[in-house]
């Protein structure tokens, strides 16, 4: 077999994605040329996807600590204390590249991967959220991708038995060649039963558990670290196929094995598979590991050590057990009819030693594998930015009919109801989902306590393109605001940073700025970042995606009966608008949908004001003073009001009067942060007013609910007066219309 292995040279290293300098570094540190298998290990573990070579220096800026943080970044997922002895565990991951190649399986295995990240921590997954971006829905290819991705998520999540409770789907031509599939998972665990991916205890046995290994996805991590080009086809690894049923068995078996007390550490075999686990687990614990690859359960014949180590077959874990308790582990996995094979042990040497039939095929210090070089590559503000910023949207003609303009916006693919997608997802299994998809945030009760969790994801690539720092901060603000509107106190955040190639200075600048914005917003809003993921190289033939940081925020409600949803509840209630006045059409949905322009300046973001508005909304929801709260997001105030009218079971109209501003488009469709529309029962109005005064935020009454029309007057003129059937028609069927 050895004779058939390619000769290791610097050129070969380059083919595998390593640079000449990196190769030199490997040779110097090893004191010799690596073997073919060892080169494979380095190529995977030093890939951008695994090693964060270009991003690590920036990610250090993110605030990661807080009194409730039990586990920050660095493990499979972050964990936060929610009281009563419970911890919430969550993380978001991207599966962009695989989903473009094979949307159904790519998205499905994306869900599988993030679920494993959660249950390796010992937590039972309770919710999935999916944040998706695609190209123009007018193109058949886009519709094929949307269909494939949504049905892949549906298939895997539903079969496994974890509800999908939220997410986003947005469209922009920049995602045509690189759709984004970001999936977040949330789980619950007793706070004192958190497991970690550490190979502690010299002499402890190492178990391989789960599905058998095939040649799937070899070099998936390397692929995720390269841009697509016309040769992408040839470089395709064998596609990974998901097996949600086996994942369910793996979940139950792992949690049961953990309960025995015989498990010392455990890690999911995700990107770079066994190679990743056998080096990262000992590296975290300061130990080493020896494994016999011949013992790895295999689905195919004649697999080489290289293939066994780098396979990305799904539904597998590496588990370190306590010596002497092997039988307990075996018994549990046998009951669930899964392989559990002892393939090695933890050693003291700090080395990863892999053998095949006794013969050493790789011997590398784990610290070296874990210590990929870090880069601080040149950054440059893009030259084209000023031209985009200089554009004044108010120079464009105003629409002849404001009502029609609103209907057009509501039916746009990005704003229209996403029910087409989420009705394919089981949203309720586990009977925890108090607020289903369709409101600002999903709310899940925590059984056995009085508490509930609110979760939401957000990210707007258009805003980030125009101002990476502020746009990223706005994503944090919006996700947190969505959680606050439901009544939740944001406790922690996970992110997925989706960008083009970091080797291009302007992309790296976008990234660096976005991290800075994220960090700043998290600091002011007091939300620690407990985990995340960077997905670079989202570009095809030089065309990068919109820079898209997606954030997921988890919040806590002390009282599961005190939450709010976004739709109006009853006629004759008062409607108030909280938050600052400043809005802009720069980067807005209106500017894109109506004028196909992505330009202009963003509205200012005052994070202190944001914090106060969110606190005020939370207080109002918790005190039961508001019967609805809805964040003003894409599409501006008019769209927010329309949604509040029609997203509930019974449509309910409203009449709103606004002061005249510079121009009606700005008032109706301008976008800006920190704004929330609330509905207040007249009997609670006085209390509500007192609370708002105390909160020191700007706010005003703007109208009242009732009737079957949405009416908006601006500066004394009625601009919008549309029957709700038309709004429903546009908004409810919009997505399906685009998908047909």
């Amino acid at each position, binding site marked *: 077999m050895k004779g058939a292995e390619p000769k290791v040279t610097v050129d070969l290293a380059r083919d595998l994605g390593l640079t000449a300098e990196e190769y030199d570094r490997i040779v110097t540190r090893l004191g010799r040329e690596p073997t073919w298998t060892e080169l494979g290990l380095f190529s995977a573990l030093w890939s951008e996807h695994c090693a964060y070579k270009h991003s690590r220096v920036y990610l250090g800026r993110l605030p990661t600590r807080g009194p409730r943080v039990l586990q920050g970044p660095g493990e499979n997922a972050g964990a936060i204390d929610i009281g009563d002895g419970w911890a919430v565990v969550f993380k978001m991951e991207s599966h962009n590249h695989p989903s473009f190649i*094979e949307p159904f399986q790519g998205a499905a295995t994306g869900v599988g991967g993030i679920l494993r990240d959660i249950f390796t921590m010992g937590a039972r997954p309770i919710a999935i959220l999916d944040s998706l971006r695609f190209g123009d829905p007018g193109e058949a290819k886009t519709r094929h991708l949307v269909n494939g991705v949504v049905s892949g998520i549906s298939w895997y999540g539903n079969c496994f038995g974890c509800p999908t409770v939220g997410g986003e789907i947005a469209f922009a031509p920049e995602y045509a060649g690189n759709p984004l599939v970001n999936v977040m998972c949330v789980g619950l665990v007793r706070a004192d039963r958190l497991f970690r991916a550490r190979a502690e205890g010299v002499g402890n046995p190492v178990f391989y558990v789960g599905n058998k290994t*095939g040649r*799937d996805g070899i070099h998936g991590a390397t692929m995720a670290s390269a841009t697509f080009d016309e040769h992408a086809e040839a470089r395709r690894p*064998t*596609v990974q*196929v*998901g*097996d949600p049923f086996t994942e369910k068995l793996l979940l139950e078996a792992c949690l049961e094995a953990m309960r025995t007390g015989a498990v010392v550490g455990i890690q999911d075999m995700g990107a770079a598979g066994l190679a990743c686990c056998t080096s990262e687990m000992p590296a975290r614990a300061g130990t080493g590991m020896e494994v016999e690859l011949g013992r790895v359960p295999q689905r195919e014949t004649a697999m080489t050590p290289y293939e066994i180590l780098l396979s990305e077959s799904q539904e597998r874990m590496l588990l370190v057990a306590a010596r002497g308790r092997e039988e307990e582990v075996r018994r549990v996995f046998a009951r669930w009819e899964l392989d559990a094979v002892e393939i090695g042990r933890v050693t003291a040497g700090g080395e990863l030693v892999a053998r095949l039939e006794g013969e050493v095929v790789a011997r590398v210090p784990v610290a070296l594998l874990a210590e990929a070089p870090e880069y601080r590559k040149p950054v440059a503000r893009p030259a084209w930015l000023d031209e985009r910023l200089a554009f004044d949207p108010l120079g464009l003609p105003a629409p002849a009919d404001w009502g029609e303009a609103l209907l057009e916006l509501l039916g746009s693919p990005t704003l229209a109801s996403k029910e087409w997608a989420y009705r394919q997802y089981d949203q309720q299994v586990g009977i925890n989902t108090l607020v289903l998809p369709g409101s600002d945030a999903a709310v899940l009760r925590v059984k056995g306590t009085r508490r509930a969790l609110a979760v939401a994801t957000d990210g707007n690539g258009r805003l980030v393109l125009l101002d990476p720092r502020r746009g990223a901060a706005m994503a944090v603000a919006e996700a947190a605001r969505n959680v606050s509107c439901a009544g939740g106190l944001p406790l922690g955040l996970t992110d997925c940073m989706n960008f083009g190639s970091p080797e291009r200075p302007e992309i790296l600048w976008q990234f660096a700025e976005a991290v800075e914005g994220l960090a700043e917003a998290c600091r002011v809003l007091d939300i620690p970042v407990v985990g995340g993921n960077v997905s670079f190289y989202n570009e095809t033939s030089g065309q990068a995606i919109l820079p898209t940081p997606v954030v997921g925020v988890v919040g806590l409600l002390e009282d599961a009966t005190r939450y709010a949803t976004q739709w109006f509840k009853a006629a004759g209630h008062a409607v108030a608008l909280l938050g600052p006045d400043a809005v802009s059409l720069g980067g807005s949905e209106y500017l894109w949908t109506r004028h196909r322009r992505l330009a202009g300046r963003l509205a200012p973001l005052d994070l202190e004001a944001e914090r106060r508005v969110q606190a005020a909304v939370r207080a109002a929801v918790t005190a039961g003073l508001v019967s609805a709260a809805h964040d003003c997001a894409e599409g501006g105030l008019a769209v927010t009001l329309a949604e509040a009218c029609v997203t509930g079971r019974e449509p309910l109209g409203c009449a709103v009067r606004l002061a005249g501003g510079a121009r009606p488009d700005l008032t109706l469709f301008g976008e800006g942060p920190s704004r929330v529309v609330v509905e207040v029962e007249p009997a609670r109005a006085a209390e509500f007013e007192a609370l708002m005064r105390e909160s020191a935020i700007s706010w005003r009454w703007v109208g009242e609910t009732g009737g079957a029309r949405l009416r908006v007057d601006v500066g004394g003129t009625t601009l919008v007066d549309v029957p709700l059937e038309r709004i429903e028609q546009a908004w409810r069927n919009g997505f399906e219309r685009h998908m047909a």
Partner: protein
Amino acid sequence: MKLRVLVRLKPGILDVQGAAVKRALVGLGFGELGDLRVGKVIEVELDAASPEAARARVAEMCRQLLANPILEDYTIETADDLAPRGAVR
């Protein structure tokens, strides 16, 4: 003209369905079972000038829609490919 397309997972791709069916059959006492794979059969009827022309059109359908080239292979069979004694049941 009647043709039939068999769409099967490429070798090496995990056949989740096949593995599950095999496990179930072995559980029901069919221990003599070796490999088992599950695929799709698509039976089409179409107008064409000749069997060759029909086959060419169906091959085009496979390329454009019926088979996912990333995961699947396909074979096309015409009536001629089946021996007269055919299948029972």
